[in-house]
Every structure is written in C-alpha cells, then in structure tokens.
C-alpha cells in the first residue's frame, strides 16, 4: 500500500483543492483529511458517513473544593500554569498530565476524561474517506491524526485499495509530523510569495528529516514570475522534483463555492488539465498505476 501526503508549511496555498482533484482522478482511493483542526475536504467530496467514533485525546484535572486545603503544592508543581489563584483548573492551560493529582496531600484532584473530537469513516464516490473533527480548542491533534491514519490503513487493507492520499495540516509541528511519518511521498504545495518559499523550505526539511521523498507543486505560479523562478532554482539545487505548476484561475474559488473539486466543476479549465498532468507525473514517479 502506498501513501502520499499533501502538505505546505504555509496555510492557504491550495492543499485541499489539490487533494480533492487527485481523489477524483484516482477513482478508487482512501483519502484521509488530517487537517483535524480546520477540516475542509468534506466540503468538496461530500462524504456519506458510515461510522462515527469518539476520540478521547486528553484528560483534565478537577479539584474537589470540599477536600482542597489550599496548600498551593499543585500550583507550584504544575508546569503549565493551569491552577488558578482560587484553586480551580484553567481548562485552556491544563494538559491533563496528572502531576497535580499525585502531589496533592489530601487527594482532592481527580483526572476526568473528555471527548476531544470525533473520527468519521465515510463513503465517497471515489472510494472511502476518513476524516475527523477536533473539538475547537482541544489539544493532542497529533494523536487524532494518528487515529485517522490507522483507520485509513484498515479501510484500505480491507477494501483492497492500494493508495491512501492524506490532506495534511499547515505548519511543521505535531499534527504535520503525524501526517508525514512513514509515507512514501510528500507533495509540498507552495505559492510564489516570500512566505510560501520560506515555509516550503521548512516543509522539505521536515520531509527529509523523516525520510520521506519530497515533491513540489507551485500553485498560482503566475502571480509572481521571479519568485516562481526562485522556487524552481531552489528545488533544482536541492534535488527536489517540481511535478506541477498551476496557474491562478478564479474557477478554483467558483468550484469551491459550488462544493466541487475543480476537476469535476470545470474539467476543461487550464488548472484542471495542469493538475491532471501533475497527478500523472506523480503516479509515474512513484510507479503507481495511472488511472487518468
């Protein structure tokens, strides 16, 4: 089974647009939306939910005020500043480690489990989709990403599907790391802005750090020719293959407004053709059977 992650470093460069188009082109695939904080792929692929599972990502401390003697030991030991002046737990700071519970001399602290999100296993026209929603403000998104990927793998195994496509989160921190470990290739979608270039470099370093083969797609390449040139030179120097250069086209936003992948909405548009070419190139580089 092969796995490809679409990532970017910088947000808003077009990861989800590209992932949705690839899903349509691949025809029989398991797609995993690992941007669990702000998932958007479902808005283009319209999954029909088959199963919903609870995600219990973290615990939270609770202080029993009838037992608490206000000694302050918990506040002193808490590394996250989560115990307030009046001995309550700040839910936005508590990381559920449990140190307060073991240092409390009167056993006034308990850890309570909470539901931090949900994982959904769904059917789409092009196979299956695993997606999730982290409850706003919850932590441990990396753990939720891992759960999404496990379910995607199980589905692919059971369904005899050879390819998992992962829509990754922005950034290079824990959910991004959880989205790229152990995959066959990472496609970094960038844009020709200074921020795009800066974050592209970090995303490629991340892939190399985890021994994942990097590929690059320059989205909206025609908004700044000089910067696109810089990206191409950078990639050449660092031996990274640029598999696609996608022009700016307002049809991408129109497709999104209509809830469709750009390839479905406007198959004859220049962007759709470029994305299809990119998919063929990526498939051939990875020796995947081309379905388009």
């Amino acid at each position: 089974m092969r796995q490809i992650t679409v990532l970017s470093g910088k947000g808003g460069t077009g990861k989800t647009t590209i992932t949705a188009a690839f899903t349509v082109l691949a025809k029989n695939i398991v797609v995993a939306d690992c941007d669990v904080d702000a998932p958007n792929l479902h808005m283009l692929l319209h999954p029909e939910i088959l199963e919903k599972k609870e995600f219990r990502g973290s615990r939270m401390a609770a202080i029993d005020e009838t037992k608490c003697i206000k000694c302050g030991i918990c506040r002193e030991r808490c590394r996250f500043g989560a115990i307030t002046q009046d001995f309550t737990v700040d839910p936005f700071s508590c990381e559920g480690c449990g140190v307060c519970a073991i240092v409390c001399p009167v056993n006034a602290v308990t850890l309570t489990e909470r539901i931090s999100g949900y994982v959904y296993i769904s059917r789409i026209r092009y196979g299956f989709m695993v997606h999730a929603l982290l409850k706003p403000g919850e932590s441990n998104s990396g753990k939720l990403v891992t759960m999404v990927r496990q379910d995607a793998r199980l589905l692919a195994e059971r369904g005899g599907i050879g390819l998992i496509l992962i829509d990754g989160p922005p950034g290079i921190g824990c959910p991004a790391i959880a989205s790229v470990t152990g995959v066959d290739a990472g496609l970094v979608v960038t844009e020709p802005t200074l921020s795009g270039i800066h974050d592209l470099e970090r995303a490629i370093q991340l892939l190399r750090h985890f021994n994942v083969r990097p590929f690059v797609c320059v989205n909206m390449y025609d908004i700044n020719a000089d910067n696109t040139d810089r990206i191409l030179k950078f990639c050449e120097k660092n031996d990274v293959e640029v598999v696609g250069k996608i022009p700016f086209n307002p049809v991408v936003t129109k497709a999104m407004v209509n809830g469709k992948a750009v390839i479905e909405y406007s198959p004859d548009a220049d962007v759709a053709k470029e994305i299809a070419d990119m998919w063929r190139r990526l498939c051939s580089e990875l020796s995947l059977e081309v379905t388009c």
Partner: protein
Amino acid sequence: MIVAVASGKGGTGKTSLAVNLAISIGNAQLLDCDVEGPNAHLLLSPKVIRQKPVYRFVPSVDEELCDYCGRCAAFCQYNAILVVPGKILIFPELCHGCGGCALVCPRKAISEKKSRIGVVKEGFANDLKIVFGELEVGEPMAVPLIREVKKYLDRNRDVILDAPPGASCPVIETVKGSDFCILVTEPTPFGLHDLRIIVEILEDMDIPHGVVINRVGIGDKREIYEYCEKKNIPVLLEIPYQRRIAELYSRGIPFSLEIPEWAGKFRKLFEDIKGLMGK
C-alpha cells in the same frame, strides 16, 4: 492593548493584517506566534538585536538505578515512556515535559535534560518592536516556544499577536490573555467554515472579537455577513482582492506602505476596536 490576529483557516491574510496594523498604529510591538511558519519578519526585515535558544525538558533515565518497575510509564498520559522487562524507552516527541515521571520514580532514576526546540529572536523595524520564534524542524511541540515568545510582551506598547492557523493548542496559547481578537477570513466556504470553529473557541474563552474580510471579490461575502449578524460579531474592515495587494505581499512588502490610504484605514480599525472595548 493586546490584540491577537487569528483565522482558523490558513492563508487568509493574518500575517499581512498583523504587520500592516502594527506599522500603521506606530510604536507597537508585534509578537509572531506562528512558530511553525513565522512569516512576519519577511515583510519587515527587522534588525535582529538578540536571539535566544529555547529548550524544553525531556526525561533521561539512569539505567544503573532503574529497576523497570514501570511506574513512570503507567503515570505518563502521553505514552512517552515504554517499559518492558529489562528495557526502558523514552519517546521525547510525545513528552509534554510535565515532570511527573521523575516525581513518581521510587529510585530517583529519572532526571530531566534540556532539549532544544527552537529560537526566539527580537528586533526592530523602525519604531516597531518585533519578536518571533522559529521551531526546530522535527520538533513537534510548538506551545512551549509560543509561551517563550509571549514572555517578551511589552506592556508599555500596543501589542499585536500573529497567531498560527488551526484551532488547537497553539492558537489557544497565542490568544490567551488578549483584550481582543481580530478574525481574518475570506469570502469562501472554507473561510466561513473555519471562522465558525475559531469563533466557538473565543466564545468559550470569553475574548471579544471582530471580523476582517480579506480578498473581497472572490467568492460571496453575503454568507459571512449573515453569519456575523446572527452571532452579533462586528465586521470591522473589508480588504478587496486586488492584484496589486497580492503582488506586494508576494514580494514581502506591507501594502499600507505603498498604498498610503491603507495606513489610515488600519489606524481607524485600531481606534474602532478601542471604541468597542470602551478604552
């Protein structure tokens, strides 16, 4: 006043807004809390006057003392320690650095060692003070570095915090303690979807907030207005989709420097927020 700039969805224009606002109001401080992809300095080219490496603590085991009793592994909520007969394994990338394993170890076999997670840089761009963090590649924990960046907060200045995208712990850590949060969105279904998520967080945290709609002209802004009206959230500013603005951003130039009427609009935005806050 401390004003955070957040969005949920990435790439809606947080950094552009944060930078333009900070330079327009004058004498401000900008804290770039997007330590995974810090970009504000690219628009400001600050003169960096100081930098400091940041560390976090991860456990280190003295195997001479360890008898593999497994209490540390049983305690660790993050599965960062695995004990099997005759062997103990530490996974630093899962460790949150709470220090609990060292506390529960009956043989005092666990100590904490420093692990470098990134660097905080401090500099000036004219009268603007800027602080930004850079997370080490391969390091999963952004929150401790954000906490470090926020220690530089200068209460004698107006402070703008540039938040990372998303809606989980790094965003919470950034907006915590702010007087107001500006939510930058774009008039697309993705923009609105992620705006709803971030609004839920700010309501829970009790932080007053308002919306700036960027790239007006793409998609349809009516749905954003309908949502904001229903939620009673003020729409503070519209920024049109203009090739010139996009092009200036791509070259790393804050557009309020090149299109001067915008500096006034950003100053007014800040005054409006002060008005909303009764300050």
